[in-house]
């Protein structure tokens, strides 16, 4: 029964993918959209059923299908593990996934390749589910690479534009750098413990002392590199903002709610490993904090509505890693969930705006949309408040937990996190004010066509906004359902913060920070009505921020250019040289032959000389040499 359910869970989106690939065109747009959405909804329902079961029984479901790879002293099963963590993840992956599918039916309706789009989306969900439910690191790796692939396909969905294709390629390659790290981590663990299965790995790690601790540190580090690639952490984050080239639902699904959380999922899954390596945890926390800060500063000055959200995502992911680094896995998971709600809502809302403006993404060309798009405005406002950490919305609880954890861990991390969240509040409301307040700044023609989006778009927005508002309820301080639910997974018990004076003060500071951020944005953009400068006028530090610290340029200079130069050098010089050497051998033979030919000059007299000489040599060798 469980096996069937699990197979349905995994294969339903895949079936949707196959149907859309092969029959999508003949079925028509609405049908293919419906099929796509339904297939994900089926998965959602199944995961809900399984979730109920596991929540009640408290025992994970393990399913092994068949042997997949046989390596050295261990075999890799093709199997699934449905425990608390994966089911929780499944719930929001498939849940938000269904909403986004629903949303896409309307959003992509004008695109001629809608069935392809749905096929890719379904495939993505399929791989994401595989990633989440895999019972060992390798199955997870299938999903891991698979979502990377779908990301590639979806970012480059409008493949006629080579810049989009470049962005897609960049995403795939950046991800692959992380993948290599993950693979190395798998190797180390596999070699050390002869298994890559999560359950057995856990017991092995906790019991065995024979393995050199350096290897474990190295493994944790390698796995973290993998997580960095997928979850867009420094130094591998640059692909995520570029990934906004894809259609907006993709940004919402992949780059906000699901795929980028894979890194966090993996670290949480492997918590037993990371708990053993405090050094790596420190690295994770530092990198998380740094990412949160760097991305937040960049987001301050971006003018593209989706870029702001993208950097905001990177920043939030940084906060989650900060929590992971502090060993507070539940907190990170909590923030993943709430973040999924409000970030999906924000992205979909921005999609709704872009849709209304026929593709305009520059906030300097927007404004005043409050009146024409009330539903979009309200839902996005709720989500913005949530992400800014305003009481009592979901973001407040989760972010506060993170900051509290950081505070108890290291005060510097807390400061960085707090600054990042103040900035978050600022740039989110900068976005809101620029987009929805004041008067419309676009062209007349756009103004003429302004309209609220259709129901299929607004319904998911409303649902997500509600979730963003109340989602914090799953893990309220004092009544931490999530903590208890996830507790069996963690080897180190999570200490709940006792709600004392410090804690309330911290909450207050966080709330005050959020409000300060909002207030600054209000002063600047709502009250004074300032507008961001045009590209050419940006100077000073804000230019550095606007150009994202020139990280892309630095990478280009440090890695891409040298590799290409090396490639050209190899192609033009080394290849010719080696080839020339081989031909040189041939030529040397030719020259030798030409010289030898001169000896054979036809002069019989000379031949006779050599003949006699030869005879003398032979007989003296035969008779005199002894």
């Amino acid at each position, binding site marked *: 029964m469980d096996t069937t359910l699990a197979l349905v869970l995994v294969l339903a989106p895949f079936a949707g993918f196959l149907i859309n690939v092969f029959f999508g065109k003949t079925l028509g747009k609405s049908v293919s959209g419906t099929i796509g959405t339904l297939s994900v909804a089926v998965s959602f329902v199944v995961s809900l059923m399984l979730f109920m079961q596991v929540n009640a029984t408290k025992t994970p479901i393990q399913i092994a299908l068949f042997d997949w790879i*046989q390596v050295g002293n261990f075999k890799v099963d093709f199997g699934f593990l449905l425990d608390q963590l994966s089911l929780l993840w499944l719930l929001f992956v498939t849940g938000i996934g269904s909403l986004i599918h629903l949303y896409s039916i309307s959003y992509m309706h004008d695109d001629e390749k809608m069935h392809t789009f749905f096929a890719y989306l379904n495939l993505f969900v399929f791989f994401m589910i595989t990633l989440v439910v895999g019972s060992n690191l390798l199955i997870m790796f299938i999903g891991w690479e698979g979502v990377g692939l779908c990301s590639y396909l979806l970012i480059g969905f409008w493949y006629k534009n080579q810049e989009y294709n470049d962005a897609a390629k960049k995403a795939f390659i950046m991800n692959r750098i992380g993948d290599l790290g993950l693979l190395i981590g798998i190797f180390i663990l596999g070699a050390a413990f002869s298994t890559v299965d999560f359950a057995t790995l856990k017991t092995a790690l906790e019991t065995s002392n024979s393995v050199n601790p350096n290897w474990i540190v190295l493994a944790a580090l390698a796995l973290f590199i993998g997580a960095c690639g997928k979850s867009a952490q420094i130094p591998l984050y640059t692909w995520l903002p570029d990934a906004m080239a894809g259609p907006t639902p993709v940004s919402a699904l992949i780059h906000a709610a699901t795929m980028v959380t894979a890194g966090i999922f993996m670290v949480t899954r492997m918590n037993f490993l990371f708990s053993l390596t405090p050094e790596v945890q420190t690295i994770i926390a530092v990198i998380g904090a740094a990412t949160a800060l760097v991305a937040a500063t960049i987001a301050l000055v971006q003018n593209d509505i989706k870029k702001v959200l993208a950097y905001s995502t990177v920043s939030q992911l940084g906060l989650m890693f900060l929590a992971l680094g502090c060993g507070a896995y539940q907190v990170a998971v909590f923030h993943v969930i709430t973040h999924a709600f409000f970030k999906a809502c924000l992205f979909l809302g921005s999609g709704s705006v872009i849709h209304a403006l026929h593709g305009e993404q520059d906030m300097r060309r927007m404004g005043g949309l409050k009146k024409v798009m009330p539903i979009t405005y309200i839902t996005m406002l709720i989500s913005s408040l949530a992400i800014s950490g305003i009481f009592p919305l979901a973001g407040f609880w989760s972010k506060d937990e993170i900051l509290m954890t950081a505070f108890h861990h290291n005060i510097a991390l807390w400061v960085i996190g707090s600054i990042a969240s103040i900035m978050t509040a600022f740039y989110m409301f900068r976005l809101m004010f620029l987009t929805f307040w004041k008067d419309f700044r676009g062209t007349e023609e756009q103004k003429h066509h302004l309209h609220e989006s259709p129901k299929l778009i607004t319904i998911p927005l409303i649902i997500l906004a509600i979730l963003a508002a109340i989602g914090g309820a799953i893990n309220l301080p004092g009544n931490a359902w999530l903590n208890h639910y996830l507790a069996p997974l963690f080897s180190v018990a999570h200490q709940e913060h006792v709600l004392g004076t410090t804690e309330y003060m911290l909450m207050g500071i966080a709330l005050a920070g959020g409000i300060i951020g909002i207030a600054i944005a209000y002063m600047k953009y709502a009250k004074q009505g300032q507008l961001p400068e045009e590209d050419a006028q940006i100077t000073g530090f804000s230019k550095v921020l606007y150009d994202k610290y020139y990280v892309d340029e630095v990478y280009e200079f440090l890695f891409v250019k040298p590799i290409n130069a090396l490639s050209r050098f190899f192609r033009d010089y080394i290849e010719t040289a080696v080839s020339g050497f081989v031909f040189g051998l041939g030529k040397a033979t030719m020259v030798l032959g030409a010289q030898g030919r001169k000896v054979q000059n036809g002069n019989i007299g000379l031949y006779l000389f050599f003949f006699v000489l030869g005879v003398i040599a032979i007989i003296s060798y035969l008779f005199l040499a002894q």
Partner: protein
Amino acid sequence: MDVIYLLVLLLVGALATYLSGDKLASKVALLFSLGAFGYSLYLLNLLEAGVNLDYTAAWITKPNIAFALKTDGLAMAMLLLTTALTPMIVFSGFGNDYKNARSIYALILFMSFAMAGTFLAADGLLYYIFWELALIPIYFIALLWGNGDAEERKKAVLKFFIYTLGGSLFMLTGFVYLYLQAGSFLLTDLYQLRLSCAQQFWIFMAFFLAYAIKIPIIPFHTWQAKVYQKAPTVGTMLLSGIMLKMGLYSVLRWQLPIAPLAAKGHQYVLIGLSVAGVIYGSIVALRQKDLKKLLAYSSLAHVGLIAAGAYTLTLDGLRGAVLQMIAHGFTVVGLFFVAEIIFRRYETRLIAEMGGIRQQTPKFTSMFLLLVLASVALPSTFNFVGEFTVLYSLFQVNLGFAILGGLTIILGAYYMLKMFQHAMLGEVNAKPFADVTFNEGLLLVLIVAVLFFFGLYSKPITDLISPSIENILIHINR
């Protein structure tokens, strides 16, 4: 005895194709190659049932040369690869109008015969004869039906011929020396030899030259790109799909078990060279303008990884190498076929002259993309199974090798996606691109299906090759 019939079938097939005339040739060739494939499946069946398929008969008494064929799991796997790819290669030629078609198809079958013989031979000299025999048809195929300037082609093909032949001569001297030591060319007798370290070193080096050129391992690779570019696509497929594997297979079958001490002593150099080939090939591929040349360099990178796996001398390395050989065989045939399909329509192999094809042929693009993904070893493709196993074995030797070899994951994705982007995506190309024909589509689907099926379920192949690889390892670690 049963195995001989397979060789006979292929040889007769070559003859029948040649006699059947230009019009029928392709069909007759397909029939015989399919027959051979079917027969090898039957042989597989026998092998699985535990029938001993080895065959030995006296052939020449002075010097002592036997007509010995050994059909264990490893040889069977390579045999299946050969007989499965041959019909595909023949079939891929259906869209082309070859001049003097009967000769080219006969040569393909003849080559298949020689390669099958190489995989089966268990007597040093017999093996050597088959090894060299395989060189003759490909020389003519590349020379007579190739493309590009005839003079330059001749130069490239001649270089290839002399280069590989020259390498093989060292192997022959190695065999002669072994014969003087063992008094027989039989594989089993050679395995029994206990040579000193110095002797093994020289034998190993003699073999290494032959194999390094054939595989090719840098810096012996310079023949490869040019010949791949100049040869007709069927020839390129034969070369890259099967013939390269002769070198790799020989490493496993002959070089390592006969001279294990030398392999162990110089393991780091050997793996280093192979891994250097991986990186070098990948980097050079980045900036190739010609699609076939790009694929040639990617092939260089992949076989470098396979060779590295083989030289780890671990069970995983050897097994991964064999898996990857098979996977690479199918992938590379598919990719070269894609290049051919584009060439049939655009008359060009320059990537710069392509682009914007995706809009016109979504099906073809999907197939191409799947092959690209297989080539970059996406999990759930067969290539991943091989590459993972090989990288894992490299890790067992040294972490650094695993990381350097693993760079193929990144660089491979880089050059393949870049190529795909410029060849297929972008604004719609002005030149019309007819959708793939049924034949073309069928072949691509078959290849992709094989790659994905074994990617998810590689157990049959693993089970097939494991016993013989373990046997080889026993000889290596004796």
